[in-house]
């Protein structure tokens, strides 16, 4: 770990007040669980999270889970906070992880989580991305907590949308001395590229390749046209479309509620640790590829939401803001831009574009395919994700040297 950061940074130590731990314990002691329909084992998840799982997790959270132990481990990460000023919204205190590689010319990489994720998703990637080697590039990694998530402040006014999130990301990187950098993330990444792509964001990689195919993209890239018509022969495309359709048909209750009535849902998630646990755990399990979650791993994850600076309700608002209360597509207003784009395909991702349609996403120069892994790729399959990033940005890779004078390798 290298401390030769070019700028002054303000270390952050997580310490949840005793009173907060006490309130959680008292609430768990008063936990009131519903019953459950008697369902066959294979249909157990049909109606939502099975009761046995919730019972076991609630008990563990109350009795065996040692938050201070996990807190101490989290504090071993190089965490900081910084005030970032956003036009029309004032100053927000932003929490982030920043680990520099020993490789001076490492590539600055901004890692952005989604919902219900958080900054800890970068944890397993950190050693892989920052380690030095002649065989692969290294990165300086910045993993930001989105405003309203974990230990970042939340905006206090309506309208904090895509452009504002992008502004936070870009200003953070620039304030750390990274005028030019690359971006890793899914979900909410598109707008940052539109606003800062080219000048600041030099390349982008995602493990969640989704966008709404646009006519303008087709017209600009006629090679897409035959691919659209090749559906009967393109099994991957049919599979991807079926997967995406299914997600939007039966997997979207959370999304519609969060995009239209985040406050209403927020009362439950702020008040009930059980409710919050179920709401998030459902995604941890159904969106991952049989990842062997341990109970403590789940509880640590959910605790970050429970103890978050702005509370769990604040994190829901991103869905409302990014869709203008569900009156617009999440990808509305984004345009295709030519910066090099990389995609990793994980089989249990919840929704995705067909591979043959990857060009809708951007100037796709790298595609990596994996046989294992789901939505939380950085957490489930960090070596696979790191592998793709190394291939994309490495010496023989299609995005080598995108950040001028930051090759990712030691000068020898």
């Amino acid at each position, binding site marked *: 770990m290298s401390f030769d950061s070019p700028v002054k940074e303000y270390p952050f130590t997580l310490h949840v007040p005793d009173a907060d731990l006490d309130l959680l314990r008292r609430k768990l002691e008063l936990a009131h669980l519903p019953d459950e329909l008697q369902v066959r084992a294979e249909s157990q998840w049909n109606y*939502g999270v099975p009761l046995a799982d919730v019972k076991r997790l609630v008990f563990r959270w109350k009795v065996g889970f040692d938050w201070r132990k996990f807190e101490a481990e989290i504090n071993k990460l190089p965490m900081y906070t910084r005030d970032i000023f956003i036009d029309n919204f004032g100053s927000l205190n932003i929490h982030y992880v920043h680990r520099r590689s020993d490789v001076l010319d490492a590539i600055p990489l901004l890692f952005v989580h989604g919902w219900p994720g958080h900054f800890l998703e970068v944890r397993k990637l950190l050693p892989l991305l920052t380690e030095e080697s002649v065989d692969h590039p290294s990165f300086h990694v910045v993993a930001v907590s989105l405003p309203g998530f974990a230990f970042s402040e939340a905006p206090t006014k309506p309208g904090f949308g895509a452009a504002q999130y992008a502004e936070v990301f870009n200003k953070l990187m620039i304030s750390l001395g990274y005028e030019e950098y690359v971006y890793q993330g899914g979900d909410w990444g598109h707008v940052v590229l539109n606003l800062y792509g080219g000048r600041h964001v030099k390349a982008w990689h995602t493990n969640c390749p989704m966008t709404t195919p646009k006519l303008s993209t087709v017209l600009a890239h006629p090679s897409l046209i035959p691919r659209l018509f090749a559906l009967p022969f393109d099994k991957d495309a049919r599979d991807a479309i079926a997967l995406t359709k299914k997600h939007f048909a039966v997997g979207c209750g959370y999304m519609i509620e969060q995009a239209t009535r985040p406050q209403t849902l927020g009362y439950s998630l702020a008040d*009930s640790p059980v409710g919050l646990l179920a*709401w998030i755990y459902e995604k941890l399990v159904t969106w991952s590829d049989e990842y062997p979650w341990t109970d403590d791993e789940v509880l640590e994850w959910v605790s970050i939401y429970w103890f978050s600076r702005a509370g769990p309700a604040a994190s829901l608002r991103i869905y409302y803001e990014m869709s203008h209360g569900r009156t617009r597509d999440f990808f509305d207003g984004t345009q295709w831009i030519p910066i090099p784009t990389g995609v990793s395909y994980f089989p249990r991702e919840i929704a995705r574009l067909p591979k043959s349609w990857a060009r809708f996403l951007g100037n796709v120069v790298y595609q990596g395919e994996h046989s294992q892994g789901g939505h939380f790729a950085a957490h489930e399959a960090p070596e696979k994700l790191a592998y793709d990033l190394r291939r994309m940005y490495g010496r023989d890779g299609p995005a080598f040297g995108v950040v001028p004078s930051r090759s990712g390798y030691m000068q020898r």
Partner: protein
Amino acid sequence: MASIDEQPYSVSIPDSELDFLKKKLELSRFPDELEGAGWDYGVPLPHVKRLVEYWKDGFDWRKSEAALNRLPMYTRDIDVEGFGTLNIHYVHQKSDVANAIPLLFVHGWPGSFIEVRKLLPLLTAGGSDHPSFHVVAPSLPGFGFSQAPSKPGFKGPQYAEVVNKLMLALGYKEYVYQGGDWGYVLAQHVVTHYGHEHVKAWHTNMPVPKQPTLFKNPFLFMGMFFLSYDASSMKRVAHTKQQHLKGTGYFNEQATKPQTIGYSLADSPIGLLSWIYEKLILWTDEYPWTDEEDEVIEWISIYWFSRAGPGASTRIYYELTGGMTHDTSHGTEWSSVPFGASYFPKEIIQLPKSWSHTIGNLVFEADHDKGGHFTAFEQPDALAGDLRKMFGKGGPAHGVVPGKNGY
């Protein structure tokens, strides 16, 4: 006056449950709120804080309970094929008029049997100038003080079986039906299985027509192309589209993951309160709930203290939509059983009135300029008035139940 072997029912929530609720309310943890959010993001924080405060320190459940117990309530075991016996809670008030029309009143979500309360005196009242009714208002399985099914697959036909068997058990072989929300959806199932033989006519305050098709409704279908819809129809459709876009989060969640949201509703009284209160406000036509905090808290308390718990009530969404894979009318058929529709301006689903013919044999329509989704609660006089017109002398459904014309 109880009829054949009715088991009177009294609500009596144990002190320990009241204490437990109070303890939970005392530990409430609230979210913050965006400045100037109003209702845009959901229920505003000041509303929730005020109601929670009242629930914790002001609301007198025992007083509500005593008033509820003055309603003629009963329970009865009903056998449901494949599901065993369910103990069903219901209100049953007979009219003094011997030939009163037996009427089954079915609530929806987030409603309950309590919605019949204001209708009871109006419908059962005797009078030479209007028909009278014997009223039966059950708590649907999983709601109020009825047992819930314990296995998956309790769908339209099962709900229909319960309510029909209840009427038969009370000696009402032939009856009429009134419902909105799930009460409307279940009417279609009840009429499909028991229409003509048992259900002689039905009425709804929430008609949900289908789009006319060439083969089923040729004239309406052609009308879609050649006649322009009047301003009122267009307004209705626009209202429905808006509701569909902005107001279906709860529906989608409950229809796909009822257990997941159930944990929140069972564990957090303020979560349950917000989830339901949002509908009480957004779905009504300026009903003065703020003047009636007791009404709100009582309403929510019925969910909190319900026999099967608040989580159970969400499952109807899953079962009746196949986990969001089909329509709620799946398995029902158009029936010639006479039906009536009343249109209220703040109902959540509104489609062109001419399309009501796609639902069934439309014999009665009434328009109103005030009222919303919880019609029986908001506009009991208007609703009772419509039923009296529909079933009264000179009305289109007069005398549908042989020997019980209401006079």
